[in-house]
């Protein structure tokens, strides 16, 4: 069944011994006119009559978004960044000779060499719009093994053994979840892929869907086989039109090739996947709200239990996992649970994809083993803080996470240690802030987000986030008193303990973590009427020098 893997990862369309120019066609590079550069490259190739030895291929995300559009010449591995159409001639002419120095990026720099790729192993190496490319990288081999050689409990066991935990944020063991859904009784079960990546500052799922959509479909089909579901839904944000387009294309290809639909791989197993578009509601990342949205209602969560594993979509047992979790499934089935469990730390296995953004030199997408330190991610891979500025904090987990100061830079990144430090793993957004960011303003920014995204069902979240936001606005406006600060802390506690769903329960996290590590900034705003970072417009405005005098 298995196809022979093509050597070197590059199943080039050119003749043997020829060159392939891979250009990133994910959303980041497309916004840097990657499509125009691709056209120009193709024109140059035909102009110079090199069609027999050289071809151009659009691939998925290569990671270093800040240097887009990214180009890799295979098999030499020469990498170019920030190319424009006018550079096409030089690039094409140099494929077999010396690289174009002014555009060349060091492909061996730590940003690339320190990463460990499982989820993103195909990203940037295959054309996401071609099924053949995916098949050449062992694509759908895991699905075929699962349905022809393994029993459903066997698949669940392998996932359990791998120790993988949900990549959506909460970190619930995936194997346990699969086991629960598999044991639930019901004529119809569903598999849902949560691709409603609502965290501002996170774009891992978008990149996976745009770069390797078949990988997600394969993971879902394996899940369907393991838990006994025949229908899957991908709930994806309407804000990601390219991801939606590539998913639709991939579903069509997989159906035609017999990897989705009836009689998958010649067996009785059938599994269909449909896309449901989200419509811009952060709360729909919560699983019960997401289910409500697929059912055509407002995205409003309901109390759990019953958990979706028992009563989910249309009251049937439903398995919900994140995009990145599904993207990990095929390699686990292919290589075994022990292989996956050998990567990472004792309680957090495997790798995690992070979206590195904010005040850091190398912004983009990185995949690192669990247990790596924040310093390695931010300084070795991320290249440190640009413009000679000083590091202040790193924000993980979006509006549900927290801001960690310098003292945590040497902490190992896994679910437990992040939680202990007052943040969360979250879906993987990592925003770096330097001394030009005011931490009170950042807390206010996140609270404004939670306030507008609160669905309004439960009072603690609906009213509490408004009140907390007003107090934070008072502090950043310079009119708050110490009593406001006490009230803020009390509200944090109330909203955290009394809200119905994760959105409300975690909304105080940015406030709590900034209060814990940057209390002096709050004090400066309240007592001295000064914003140390110079961000907030205080009335009356004072400078640090005036306060000191």
């Amino acid at each position, binding site marked *: 069944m298995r196809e022979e893997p093509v050597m070197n990862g590059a199943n080039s369309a050119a003749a043997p011994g020829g060159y392939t120019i891979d250009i990133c066609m994910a*959303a*980041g590079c*497309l*916004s*840097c006119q990657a499509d125009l550069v691709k056209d120009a490259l193709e024109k140059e190739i035909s102009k110079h009559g090199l069609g027999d030895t050289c071809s151009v291929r659009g691939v998925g995300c290569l990671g270093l*978004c*800040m240097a*887009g559009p990214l180009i890799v010449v295979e098999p030499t591995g020469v990498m170019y960044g920030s190319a424009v159409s006018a550079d096409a001639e030089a690039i094409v002419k140099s494929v077999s000779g010396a690289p174009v120095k002014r555009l060349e990026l060091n492909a061996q720099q730590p940003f690339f060499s320190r990463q460990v790729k499982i989820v993103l192993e195909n990203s940037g190496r295959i054309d996401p719009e071609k099924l053949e490319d995916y098949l050449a990288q062992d694509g759908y081999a895991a699905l075929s093994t699962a349905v022809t050689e393994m029993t459903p409990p066997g698949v669940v066991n392998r996932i359990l053994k791998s120790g993988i935990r949900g990549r959506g944020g909460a970190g619930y063991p995936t194997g346990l979840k699969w086991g629960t859904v598999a044991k639930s009784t019901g004529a*119809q079960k569903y598999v849902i892929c949560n691709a409603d*990546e*609502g*965290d*501002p*500052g*996170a*774009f891992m799922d*978008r990149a996976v869907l745009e770069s390797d959509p078949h990988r997600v479909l394969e993971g879902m089909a394996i899940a369907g086989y393991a838990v006994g579901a025949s*229908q899957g839904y991908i709930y994806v944000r*309407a*804000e*990601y039109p390219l991801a939606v387009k590539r998913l639709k294309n991939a579903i069509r290809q997989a159906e035609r090739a017999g990897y989705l639909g009836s009689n998958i791989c010649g067996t009785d197993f059938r599994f269909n996947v449909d896309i*449901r*578009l*989200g*419509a*811009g*509601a*952060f709360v729909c990342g919560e699983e019960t709200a997401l289910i409500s*949205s*697929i*059912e*055509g*209602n*407002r*995205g409003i969560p309901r109390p759990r239990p019953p958990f979706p594993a028992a009563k989910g979509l*249309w*009251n*049937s047992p439903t398995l919900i996992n994140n995009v990145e979790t599904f993207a990990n499934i095929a390699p686990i089935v292919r290589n075994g649970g022990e292989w996956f469990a050998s990567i990472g730390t004792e309680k957090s296995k495997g790798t995690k994809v992070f*979206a*590195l*953004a*904010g*005040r850091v030199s190398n*912004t*983009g*997408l990185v995949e690192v083993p669990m247990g790596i330190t924040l310093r390695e991610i931010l300084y070795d891979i991320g290249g440190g803080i640009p413009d000679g500025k000083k590091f202040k904090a790193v*924000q993980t987990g*979006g509006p549900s996470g927290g801001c960690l100061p310098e003292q945590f830079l040497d902490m190992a990144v896994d679910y437990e240690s992040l939680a202990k430090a007052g943040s969360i793993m979250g879906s993987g*957004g990592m*925003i770096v*802030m330097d001394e030009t*960011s005011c931490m009170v303003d*950042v807390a206010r*920014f*996140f609270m404004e*987000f939670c306030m507008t*995204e609160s*669905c309004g069902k439960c009072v603690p979240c609906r009213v509490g986030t408004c009140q907390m936001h007003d107090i934070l606005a008072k502090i950043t406006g310079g009119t708050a008193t110490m009593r406001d600060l006490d009230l803020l802390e009390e509200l944090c506690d109330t909203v955290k303990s009394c809200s119905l769903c994760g959105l409300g329960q975690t909304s105080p996290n940015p406030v709590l973590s900034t209060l814990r590590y940057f209390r002096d900034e709050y004090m400066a705003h309240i007592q001295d009427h000064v914003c140390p970072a110079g961000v907030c417009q205080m009335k009356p405005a004072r400078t640090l020098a005036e306060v000191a005098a």
Partner: protein
Amino acid sequence: MQSRQPALEGKPSAPSPNVAAPVADDKRWKLVNATMRRHGYQSHALIETLHTVQEAFGYLDDDSLRYVSAALKVPYSKVYGVATFYHFFTLKPQGEHTCVVCMGTACYIKGAPALLAGIREAIGVESGQTTDNGRVSVLSARCIGSCGLAPAVVLDGEVAGRMNAKDLKDRLAGWMASGRAVEEVVPQ
């Protein structure tokens, strides 16, 4: 909970015969009907249908909400509730050009508020508003996932990364200066 499982439903029910599209000869309604038909006119097709309406017409007006409500046999109150719950849906017509400013964390840290201030200065509108001549609508987005290129804006559907207030102002000034005549873009 109110929705039923599609697999257990029998034949898809046809829409009531007396439900006519607001402007029957407008071909865009065919797209909307096609979406509803694909889902068997079931109530859970509501969000997908509203997406199609917005894609075809640019926004959701009262007539279209009432039509969808009748065709899917969903109370108007619920249709209105869904249309206003989700940020992606807009009940107001958009201008000839749209400028979406990303307000995600990375963009916020890297100067998105300055971009909004620049827009205010250049064309005098806030996020969520359209200029009086109907040329430009300004919107803000939660996060468009282009964090590596922060601050990012979406100009007529094209993502433009590493934007600064000056370039953005120039772009908007260009939009304001040229384009179709005002009367054509003001909706009836």
